[in-house]
């Protein structure tokens, strides 16, 4: 996710990590195109969105993580992110590339649930296994 965010900087990058339905385990990384190609907005292309959901359905998977980057602001959902959040079961991961742009270095990555307009942050642990 961080590499994708850096590669697309200064535009916002976006994508999904899918996992088996009902497990809440993000296992399959699926970078998506930002059809808006914008530094301040992202949107999955509508055809790509349909194909993605059909594939998830066929594989009995869910979009466990929905991620996108902010390229000039903090890694926190914007008002637009909150208004448009349409997957109550997903973990919304925000990555900010404001400090380093396309370069390596420290990064901000935070995760949130967004349900009915209410945002709650959750801890992120990066490791090799699920516990």
């Amino acid at each position, binding site marked *: 996710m961080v590499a994708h965010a850096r590669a697309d900087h200064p535009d916002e990058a976006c994508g999904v990590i899918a996992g088996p339905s009902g497990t809440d385990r993000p296992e399959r990384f699926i970078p998506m195109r930002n059809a808006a190609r914008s530094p301040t907005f992202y949107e999955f292309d509508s055809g790509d969105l349909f194909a993605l959901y059909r594939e998830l359905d066929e594989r009995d998977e869910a979009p466990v993580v929905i991620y996108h980057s902010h390229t000039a602001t903090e890694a926190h959902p914007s008002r637009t992110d909150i208004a448009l959040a349409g*997957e109550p079961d997903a973990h919304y991961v925000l990555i900010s590339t404001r400090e380093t742009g396309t370069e390596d270095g420290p990064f901000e990555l935070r995760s949130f649930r967004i349900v009915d307009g209410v945002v709650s942050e959750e801890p992120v642990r990066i490791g090799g296994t699920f516990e």
Partner: protein
Amino acid sequence: MPVEVRVPTILRPLTGGAKVVTAKGETLAAVVADLDGSYPGIGERLLDDSGLRRFVNVYINDEDVRFLAGLQTEVADQDSITILPAVAGG
């Protein structure tokens, strides 16, 4: 003329949890009206004063209705309609 409508997670509280429901109508507008009759409130989640909401995508079979005739798109027996919230933000 029943058609199958696939309902996204966020609207399933309105369909009693059902992921796939059936509806009737010869156009998408009529199907939405029929859906709203069966599942009150769903119409408002799909439409605003100007028509289909900007961040709601509706597909007939695998075509986004925005590239067809929008709400006036004709719906045929056995078509499959899919509703997906846009994945978008700022």
